[in-house]
């Protein structure tokens, strides 16, 4: 197995992200599996950022804490991350900005100088760095050339290609043996390279979402921005609204009028959307809401990750109505679950919440190309005029056994479509009667039963008769799965029980899976063990230990494996 982890680090504004992304793409195109995460502050220039790229010839879904190469754009980066290097790790740095690395192997490249020499412009210094990195790994620069040409047009492309070669050449010449680790293109690209929110946006477009309203908020803005960038091409309307309240209510208006619609936000914005979520519930309007979690409460840590909104999105809104909550585990999952979200929303005429987080949103992953045959559109029960369906008998909220009332769209037939955020009768007009109220509540809640059957079973992995089962959900999938491998390699019998479709809760499957193991630890990025509480209320089973992390930084496989071995978990 060939594997390397490369970190690009520096100040915000130095181009950490763009170097990191280009490197990720180069390796992905070279046939490697790539997983890259990002760490940055809530500021635009300065501070400290890094972009970590794990390159492997095997599938990977998490980052490794140890580094083979550190591409340090300033002295801080050396000081902060030197300790993460493996013993034979190498630091590539800007000769002008880094003065020392105290013992580590240092490949000091005069980035600016080389840029100036090669392209007459210091602006391409980052591309020199890129070349240097490839030089160090002895990785053929052809793929990088192509990529630079695609990224920059005309003259700029040329300058960048020259810069690339300058960096590459410099390192090959002066530091050919600095790195014991070498990478070569493996062959054809495995699939795509994209991050979780790109996958969500792509999934939404593929599913027929035609309208998105949203208000910018990290990490959800990326969805809005991707949709906006492609709006003209794909025939979408994308509206940046005055606030999140407007966003969700616009989404509801569009859903009511018959168009697949969504909005996306993070915790604070979701708070403001709660009333709208309930409005969608009682008016039985299909909407998809993405909550991209980040550490709370309130503003919290805007550019970090957390899984702290689970109980909130399950219970957001006064009163009761059915909903589905899906928490994609991987980039692939993000795509397909988004499609599923739109189908469930329309089939069950109720809000569906996609619970992502900063980690999933911003981490890039190599994944197989999406299979568009699996993208099918299910619009649910629709009203068709004629044949015993006289328009003047149409009732939007007709009581049915399934709880699902055929939808008509306003203006699309002579049937009048009437709904109300007040309790209403079958015809949608407001009522005071207790009996009608109960029958409409019952009707709506019956949809929970149908939804329940749509939920896929959780994923189990690892030892079939485990001593320890690690329970996890959402974006921690990759880290936990790899931790299971590490632990089983170490001779422990460990399995994973992982949920991405959280609500309606797959009660039986979880009960059964937990019954197979002896001890269960729940691993989640929050402080109160929210999944563990959900399991308890649904199955009665208490966790034997909680592995909680809420410093805003992601779990890594080694972190988890280590703590499991040392039984370092907190009690229920």
């Amino acid at each position, binding site marked *: 197995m060939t594997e390397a982890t490369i970190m690009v680090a520096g100040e915000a504004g130095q181009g950490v992200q763009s170097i990191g992304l280009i490197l990720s793409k180069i390796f992905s195109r070279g046939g490697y599996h790539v997983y890259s995460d990002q760490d940055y502050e809530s500021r635009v220039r300065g501070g400290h950022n890094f972009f970590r790229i794990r390159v492997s010839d095997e599938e990977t879904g998490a980052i490794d804490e140890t580094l083979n190469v550190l591409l340090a754009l300033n002295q801080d980066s050396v000081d902060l991350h030197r300790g993460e290097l493996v013993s034979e790790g190498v630091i590539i740095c800007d000769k002008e900005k880094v003065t020392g690395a105290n013992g580590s192997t240092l490949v000091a490249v005069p980035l600016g100088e080389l840029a100036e020499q090669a392209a007459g412009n210091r602006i391409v210094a980052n591309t020199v760095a890129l070349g240097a990195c490839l030089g160090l790994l002895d990785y053929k620069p052809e793929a990088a050339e192509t990529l630079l040409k695609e990224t920059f047009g005309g003259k700029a492309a040329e300058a960048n290609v020259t810069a690339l070669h300058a960096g590459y050449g410099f390192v090959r010449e002066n530091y050919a043996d600095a790195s014991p680790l070498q990478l070569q293109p493996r062959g054809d690209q495995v699939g795509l390279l994209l991050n979780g929110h790109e996958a969500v946006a792509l999934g939404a477009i593929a599913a027929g979402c035609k309208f998105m309203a949203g208000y910018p908020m990290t990490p959800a803005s990326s969805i809005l921005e991707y949709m906006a960038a492609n709006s003209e091409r794909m025939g979408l309307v994308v509206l940046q609204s005055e606030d999140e309240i407007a966003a969700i209510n616009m989404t509801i*208006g569009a859903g009511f009028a018959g168009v697949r619609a969504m909005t996306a936000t993070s915790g604070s914005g979701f708070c403001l959307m709660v009333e709208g979520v309930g409005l969608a519930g009682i008016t039985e309007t299909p909407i998809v809401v993405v909550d991209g979690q980040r550490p709370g409460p309130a503003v919290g840590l805007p550019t970090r990750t957390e899984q702290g909104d689970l109980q909130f999105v399950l219970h957001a809104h006064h009163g009761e109505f059915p909903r589905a909550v899906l928490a994609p585990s991987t980039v692939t999952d993000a795509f397909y679950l988004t499609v599923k979200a739109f189908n469930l929303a329309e089939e069950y005429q109720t809000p569906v919440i996609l619970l992502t987080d900063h980690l999933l949103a911003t981490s890039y992953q190599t994944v197989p190309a999406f299979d568009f045959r699996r993208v099918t559109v299910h619009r649910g029960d629709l009203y068709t005029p004629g044949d015993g369906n006289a328009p003047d008998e149409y009732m939007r909220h007709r009581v049915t056994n399934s709880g699902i009332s055929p939808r008509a769209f306003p203006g699309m037939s002579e049937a009048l479509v009437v709904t109300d955020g007040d309790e209403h009768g079958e015809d949608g007009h407001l009522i005071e009667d207790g009996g009608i109220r109960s029958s409409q509540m019952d009707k709506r809640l019956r949809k929970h039963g149908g939804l329940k059957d749509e939920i896929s079973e959780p994923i189990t992995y690892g030892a079939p008769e485990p001593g320890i089962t690690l329970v996890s959900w959402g974006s921690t999938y990759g880290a936990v799965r790899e931790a299971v491998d590490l632990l089983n390699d170490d001779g422990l019998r460990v399995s994973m029980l992982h949920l991405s479709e959280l609500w309606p809760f797959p009660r039986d499957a979880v009960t059964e899976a937990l019954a197979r193991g002896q001890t269960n630890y729940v691993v989640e990025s929050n402080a109160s063990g929210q999944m563990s509480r959900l399991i308890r209320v649904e199955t009665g089973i208490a966790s034997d230990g909680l592995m909680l992390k809420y410093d805003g930084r992601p779990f890594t496989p080694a972190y988890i494996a280590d703590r499991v071995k040392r039984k370092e978990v907190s009690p229920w």
Partner: protein
Amino acid sequence: MVSMQDYAGLKPAWCPGCGNFGILRALNKALVQMELKPHEVLMVSGIGQAGKLPHYSRANVFNSLHGRALPVAVGARIANSELTVIVVGGDGDGYAEGGNHFLHTMRRNHDMTYLVHNNQIYGLTKGQASPTSDEGFVTRTTPEGTEPPLIPLALAILTGATYVARGFAGDIEHLSTVIQGGIAHRGFSLIEILQPCVTFNKKNTFQWYQERVYKLDDEKDYDPEDKRQAQARAEEWGDRIPLGVFYRHERATYEERQPALRKGPLVRQSIESIQAKTLMEEFR
């Protein structure tokens, strides 16, 4: 042929004598005279006495949340730009809870007609202060009297509404004409309606309004395309209260600016086989 019968809805639960009856009649008349069929119309309302109006007319209806009628209407109108969208709400609904949407919906000039039943009080919740209560008005929540009111029509002219008018529930003919103008207008129409609340507002009664209203139509030289004039009239409130069209202006609507809508309403576009594969290929 559309008739008043087509717009006959549920029996109103308003107080006898409430100004809302006149508004309901004026609206229905306008729709009939414009030969709009109920299924071509979508009425979106907020919560309050005014917000109940759509139940008492007959059309497609989305009775939404307090303060949120405008964004719901915006979404629906973007989804189906063939719908005639009428938004209905009270002064509290529109200018307090919904104040932010009010500003920004006007700015974007969505093509819809917004009727604000301004009774200068909270009717449904039984008599609290409203942003349009006259200064010093004593209510259950403002024993020391209310703050100076907002001036919605002036806000509208300033902020980008392209048809700004006022009607009076006591003058159904005139109101109906003003509403027709608003519906016919391409762009955002704000129609504020003086609506006596006979139960909770004992100051601004039918008579109080009657004694003060006059029609801009009757003012010679009044030009609703003149923004300065319009702003000055919009700020007029006291012994004389103007009725009619304050301001009219043509500019592109939000919907007209959307490339995606050039192919027709979103709701008519098939979503069964979206060409998203090309997008995917960009992630290679």
